[in-house]
């Protein structure tokens, strides 16, 4: 009996458990089906959708691209945001339509504000052809046509954005006023195109174009920085704040690059080149490089080429990337080699032979020699005179006679001067050509190659390489590697400094460098670069003019690689030198390129004049070349006690005697008069004299001695 009762109780418990089991299984299946339907088929009501979204969201933080600054800390490139402005013209319209009580009234208010906005937009945006009516139609049409993304203006800066946010509707929340602001990081270049091929160009930091050039391209990995991320959460008052409990990936902003460029020197060089090439319409391009003698730092690098519109723009880095036959500027290289090897002295004389190399009949007679013979009534010419008049005959003869048996000795020297190789340069550019020095072991080598190399033909080097060589001469034989990046910095703190690099500790002895400097000075004083004679500081340098190789399509029907069938040629005219010659501080090269022309453009013309402009202006702007004045001496006493300042109409003319120019101008202009002055020193006389009265704005003339 007891057992039966127990069995029944157990059976009942089992049934209850089975029931629970079935119910739970059923609920589980229903849950799975519910999840599936929710995931794939169910859509919440749009007005509640925000409540289904997580209250935390991840926000990427884009790094700020580092700035590029010049040697003196002036900004060359920096990133700032620009804004595109759109408007949701349909904002609040549906709400107004639904509200039967105040909807009409609110809609009228919104329209009135829109009219006021349209009236004030032209004053803020100042866009040509867009007046009040234009903006009014744009907004009202957009509202009628339910447009929620109407473009108002693009590419405005932060200042204009702040003004826009003061306007009616735009000073309200986006959900009421409809203002939509889209921010874009943009790269700004305050100096525009200046040094464009050195600095480079990027649109913005997210611009992943791998073809960026210049410093921007080469040092993108430094400038770019690394993206960060943080989580944001919504507070009870619907404000977004940083969620400090979540993981944060710290953003790493890009570092700054300090360039060796001096933007003032760059401006001077750019302006000088533009001024001088503008007068000759046959010039299609030109470049200038200015190096600091001691370090090889590039202080300026101008690269101008004429575009299709006839404007000179920075299109390609001609200075570092366009090797060509340098012409007579290479004679300094030849002369250095001859001097260093003890083959010649500047005063050594040789027969002129009417400029004819009888053992090398392919060369035409040197006209410069025949002119020299006639002018000097002589049949001998010294090495220095040959250098001054840039005689091809003299240099071919010297090299043939001294290295004809062992041309490799001469060519090896050129390699020691780093002419044979393209050295690593800290700029990114595309289409850089490679320099070429002929090889005497080549089966096609002839003695003519040696003679041609001596005058800057049959070889190919860049203007930067030529400047580097001349810089070594200015630097007593020490050849420095040109460089354009000085340091990597983080808000002024130097992280990495790039020290000057020596390419060759001594390409020649100091004595040879001094001798060559003397020869180069003679070129500017008495030779082919006489235009530089009146430069404000003494220049040592050399001119060079070479014909350029033409592409086959540029000379159809012509076998001569240098001229077309009509005898027209392209020229590369160069002047390279350093200044002040006795204590060189800068080395500069100016190269200009012509289109196909039938006349010649010489290195002694446009390039030398450009060089002169640069040297004069640089000299005037550099206080280190100013006169040293003794601090002791008798200086007239300058007491300003008797100067009455003020702007009243009856102020008498002050006594200016004994004042310096600056103080005198201050006193005059502070009394409302204008100043005219002559002489330098201190004021010795003035017209009208002190105590008299003049009408405001009239002129007082002072004489300084």
């Amino acid at each position, binding site marked *: 009996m007891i057992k039966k009762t127990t069995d029944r109780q157990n059976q009942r418990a089992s049934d209850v458990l089975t029931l629970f089991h079935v119910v739970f299984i059923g609920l589980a299946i229903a849950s799975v089906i519910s999840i599936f339907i929710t995931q794939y088929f169910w859509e919440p009501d749009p007005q509640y959708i925000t409540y289904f979204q997580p209250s935390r969201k991840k926000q990427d933080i884009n790094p700020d691209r580092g700035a590029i600054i010049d040697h003196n800390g*002036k*900004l060359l490139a*920096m*990133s*700032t*945001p620009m804004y595109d402005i759109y408007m949701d013209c349909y904002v609040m319209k549906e709400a107004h339509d639904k509200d039967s009580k105040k909807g009409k009234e609110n809609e009228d208010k919104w329209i009135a504000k829109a009219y006021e906005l349209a009236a004030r937009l032209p004053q803020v945006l100042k866009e040509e052809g867009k007046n009040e009516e234009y903006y009014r139609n744009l907004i009202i049409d957009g509202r009628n046509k339910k447009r929620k993304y109407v473009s108002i203006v693009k590419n405005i*800066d*932060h*200042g204009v954005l*702040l003004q826009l946010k003061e306007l009616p509707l735009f000073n309200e929340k986006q959900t009421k006023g409809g203002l939509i602001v889209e921010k874009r990081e943009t790269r*700004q270049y*305050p*100096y*525009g195109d*200046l040094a464009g091929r050195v600095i480079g160009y990027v649109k913005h930091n997210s611009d992943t174009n791998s073809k960026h050039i210049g410093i921007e391209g080469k040092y993108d990995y430094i400038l770019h920085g690394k993206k960060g991320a943080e989580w944001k959460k919504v*507070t*009870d*008052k619907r*404000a*977004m*704040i*940083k969620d*400090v409990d979540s993981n944060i990936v710290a953003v790493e902003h890009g570092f700054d690059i300090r360039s060796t460029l001096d*933007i*003032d020197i760059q*401006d*001077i060089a750019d*302006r000088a080149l533009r001024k001088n090439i503008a007068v000759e319409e046959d010039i299609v391009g030109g470049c200038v490089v200015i190096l600091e003698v001691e370090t090889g730092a590039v202080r300026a690098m101008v690269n101008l080429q004429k575009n299709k519109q006839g404007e000179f723009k920075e299109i390609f880095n001609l200075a570092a990337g366009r090797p060509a036959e340098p012409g007579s500027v290479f004679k300094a290289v030849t002369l250095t080699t001859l001097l260093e090897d003890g083959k010649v002295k500047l005063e050594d004389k040789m027969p002129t032979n009417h400029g004819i190399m009888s053992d090398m009949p392919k060369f035409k007679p040197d006209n410069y020699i025949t002119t020299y013979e006639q002018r000097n009534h002589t049949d001998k010419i010294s090495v220095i005179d040959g250098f001054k008049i840039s005689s091809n005959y003299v240099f071919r003869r010297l090299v043939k006679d001294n290295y004809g048996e062992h041309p490799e000795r001469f060519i090896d020297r050129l390699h020691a001067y780093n002419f044979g190789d393209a050295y690593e340069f800290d700029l990114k550019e595309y289409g850089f050509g490679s320099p070429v020095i002929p090889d005497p072991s080549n089966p096609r080598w002839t003695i003519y190659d040696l003679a041609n190399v001596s005058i800057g033909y049959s070889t190919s080097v860049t203007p930067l390489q030529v400047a580097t060589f001349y810089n070594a001469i200015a630097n007593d034989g020490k050849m420095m590697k040109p460089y354009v990046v000085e340091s990597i910095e983080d808000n002024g703190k130097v992280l990495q400094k790039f020290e000057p690099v020596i390419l060759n500790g001594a390409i020649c002895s100091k004595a040879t460098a001094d001798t060559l400097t003397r020869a180069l000075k003679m070129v500017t004083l008495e030779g082919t670069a006489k235009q530089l004679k009146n430069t*404000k500081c003494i220049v040592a340098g050399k001119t060079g003019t070479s014909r350029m190789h033409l592409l086959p399509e540029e000379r159809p029907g012509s076998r001569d690689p240098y001229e077309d069938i009509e005898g027209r040629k392209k020229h590369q005219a160069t002047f390279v030198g350093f200044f002040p010659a006795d204590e060189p501080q800068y080395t500069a090269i100016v190269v200009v390129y012509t289109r196909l022309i039938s006349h010649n453009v010489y290195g002694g013309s446009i390039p030398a004049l450009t060089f002169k402009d640069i040297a004069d*202006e640089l*000299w*005037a*702007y*550099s*206080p*280190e*070349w*100013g*006169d*040293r*004045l*003794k*601090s002791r001496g008798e200086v007239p006493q300058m007491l300003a006690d008797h100067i009455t300042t003020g702007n009243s109409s009856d102020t008498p003319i002050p006594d200016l005697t004994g004042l310096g120019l600056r103080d005198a101008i201050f006193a005059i202009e502070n009394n409302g008069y204008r100043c005219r002055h002559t002489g330098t020193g201190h004021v010795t006389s003035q017209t009208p004299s002190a105590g008299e009265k003049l009408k405001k704005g009239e002129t007082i003339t002072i004489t300084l001695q």
Partner: protein
Amino acid sequence: MSEKKPRFRLLKAIINGDILLLLRADRLLPYILYFFILGWISIWISYKSEQTMTIVEKNKLELESLKIYHAQKTCEFVGLDRISTIEQLLIENNSEVKAPEKPAGIIK
């Protein structure tokens, strides 16, 4: 019977509302109050820190805005700092000031 009595008392105490007295929770009152105050402070601090963070975020936006404004003005002024631009402006304003023709003298 003796086993059911405590359960019955417990049920009765819950219904009567004196369960805490039955359990002698009055001895733990200081601790309960302490934990209550801790909880309240925690919530209050959390609320205040949210308020502070909101202000921080607003200030951050304001600073960002000023930084951008400063950067754009810097960019604008740097462009004016160019020698060519200065000389052009001097000419346009009929100024007598010109570029130097010789380097400045230095008093030793």
